[in-house]
């Protein structure tokens, strides 16, 4: 193992949609960097020796290589830079790339800026843009938007695991209500209300069993994260840095229907897995991250997580893929509210994609930043109260997720 990978700071713009989210991408990036500098007075932009840019779709920005606009605006001409793109797991993949750069010893301090501007087209057009990441020759025209693919997968998963609409609605209400404690969250800034399981059940049908409030939000937003080696972390943030002790990245088929007999999965996990129900790439990348971080019992060794709740149903599926509960115990795990703030392992105290928002290229970084704030004790400063503060966390998990589970990464963050 090479250099130890650390996180010393980061910030997001408020996540918004439409009229309230009017900032330019380079203006948003500058806002994030300035906030990180306030948190971290010893940090200077000239300390960075690599910049990574995390952005999903140039369709939304109507601009090729938009990272060049941001990079130049930040005053960083001359510094090496490139963009990472990996669907919804773009942020996680950029973090993976930054961690590799630091681990190798080749780079000391890496900045990552992630963003998406999904409100530059209409909401239904936006859904169709995202669906361009499905196999358009086979899936785009058959009613194809992502909620529909996810619904078809979740419907079978829920039947087989005896999970009800109400069970997943409780996840949706949890995350949106957590977001009510987070002034940067889109749910706080736009809809701004506490909701119940009943509200979720009564919201309009998107694709059975998924309803409107089971869905994450389309967003405009920017995020900035600083990843570095331990020597630099000790120099700029000796009391508040966090280590990336484990990481994993895995992949699955683009079309969900292609994974029911996929030979490499059969070889790895035996026949019948993942079917169209399980997120095999989540299980596989979590296994890598757990092994690296020495985690044998995730439920007891991890204190909380910020995970990719694109849909409430997928958050439930992710619990299982992360090994927090097996098929026999998943319903009880859900009904015990194990992942609510007062549960055994709070998930998405920052609001998650359902509450904070989902500007794709910024999303995985937002999850990482929220996880970092919890471990660094910064929640009282960043949230409105300590209601969404995990008590004395030592270890958190960050999960980022793309396609129909087509690329998934997991990271284990700890206090040093």
């Amino acid at each position, binding site marked *: 193992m090479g250099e130890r990978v650390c996180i010393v700071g980061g910030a997001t713009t408020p996540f918004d949609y439409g009229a309230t989210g009017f900032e330019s991408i380079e203006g948003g990036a500058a806002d994030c960097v300035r906030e990180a500098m306030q948190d971290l007075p010893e940090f200077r932009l000239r300390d960075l020796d690599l910049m990574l840019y995390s952005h999903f779709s140039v369709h939304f920005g109507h601009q090729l290589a938009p990272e060049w606009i941001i990079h130049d605006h930040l005053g960083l001409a001359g510094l090496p830079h490139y963009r990472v793109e990996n669907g919804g797991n773009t942020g996680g993949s950029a973090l993976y790339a930054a961690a590799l750069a630091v681990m190798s010893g080749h780079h000391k301090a890496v900045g990552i800026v992630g963003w998406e501007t999904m409100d530059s087209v209409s909401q239904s057009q936006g859904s169709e843009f995202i669906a361009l990441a499905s196999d358009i020759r086979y899936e785009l025209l058959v009613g194809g938007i992502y909620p529909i693919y996810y619904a078809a997968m979740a419907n079978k998963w829920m039947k087989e695991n005896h999970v009800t609409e109400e069970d997943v609605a409780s996840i949706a209400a949890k995350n949106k209500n957590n977001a009510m404690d987070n002034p940067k969250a889109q749910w706080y800034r736009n809809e701004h209300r506490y909701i119940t399981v009943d509200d979720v059940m009564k919201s309009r049908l998107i*694709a059975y069993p998924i309803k409107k409030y089971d869905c994450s939000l389309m967003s405009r937003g920017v995020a900035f994260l600083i990843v570095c080696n331990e020597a630099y972390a000790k120099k700029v943030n000796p009391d508040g840095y966090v280590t990336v002790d484990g990481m994993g990245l895995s992949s699955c088929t683009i079309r969900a229907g292609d994974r*029911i*007999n996929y030979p490499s999965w059969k070889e790895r996990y035996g026949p019948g897995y993942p079917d169209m129900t399980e997120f095999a790439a989540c299980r596989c990348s979590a296994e890598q991250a757990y092994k690296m971080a020495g985690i044998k019992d995730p439920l007891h060794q991890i204190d909380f997580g910020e995970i990719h709740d694109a849909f409430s149903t997928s958050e439930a599926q992710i619990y299982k893929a992360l090994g927090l509960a097996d098929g026999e115990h998943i319903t009880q795990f859900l009904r015990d509210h194990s992942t609510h703030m007062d549960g055994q392992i709070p998930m998405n105290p920052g609001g998650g994609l359902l509450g904070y928002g989902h500007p794709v290229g910024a999303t995985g970084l937002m999850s990482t930043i929220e996880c970092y704030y919890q471990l660094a004790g910064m929640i009282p400063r960043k949230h409105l109260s300590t209601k969404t503060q995990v008590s004395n966390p030592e270890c958190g998990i960050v999960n980022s997720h793309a396609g129909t589970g087509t690329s998934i990464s997991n990271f284990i963050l700890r206090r040093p």
Partner: protein
Amino acid sequence: MAESVVMEQKRRKTKYAVEPNFTEKKQFRPAGVQETGLAFVGYEVSDDRQTMNQFLHYDQLYTIRHGKNSPFFIGLLEGKIMGTRCPRCGTTWVPIRTHCWSLDCDLVETDWVEMPLTATVHTWTVAGWSGRSSLKRLPIILVYAVIGDSSVAIANELHGVKPWDVEFGMPLKVVFKPKDQRQGVITDFHFEPADGWRPGPMTAEKLRIKELVEPVYEWVKTLK
């Protein structure tokens, strides 16, 4: 030999790669859609004159070159579901793969096989919302179904059944649009219940889906 033919032969001889000739051509682009190129088409300024938004119009015609995958899409024009099969391990696919996915088969090229027009539901959903181009067809029943002995499931719409009556494992038939309406795209066909299939009795889940779907029918009526 006519001069134009001689010229054509000369033109072709200077090429070092074979170029297919496309005599059969169809265009389905809606009338009035034009490739205007990139154009700034308007702006708005906030009342406090602090914020400006600009409108950019962009319309582009793409050519999807199907290459080795072409027989599948040509098959659709002919009312056939073409699959592929690995000559080594015998795995069959629709959606097709032109090379075997098994790491033991070393990307061997697969053979084309005509598939039966029968399938089984692997999983399903009932959509009450969709992309812009599908809104008027809501509610849509989307199934992932296994055609014949395919090792993968293909997504397509299920017609001819109430949204709440779709079942896991239900037998289906593939139904093509009339020949003159086919475009060589996946929507040239859809699924319908196999002949003789009858929906099961009303259940609590079916009632729930009915309750969720009924407002969708009303909403679609309001679309222009």
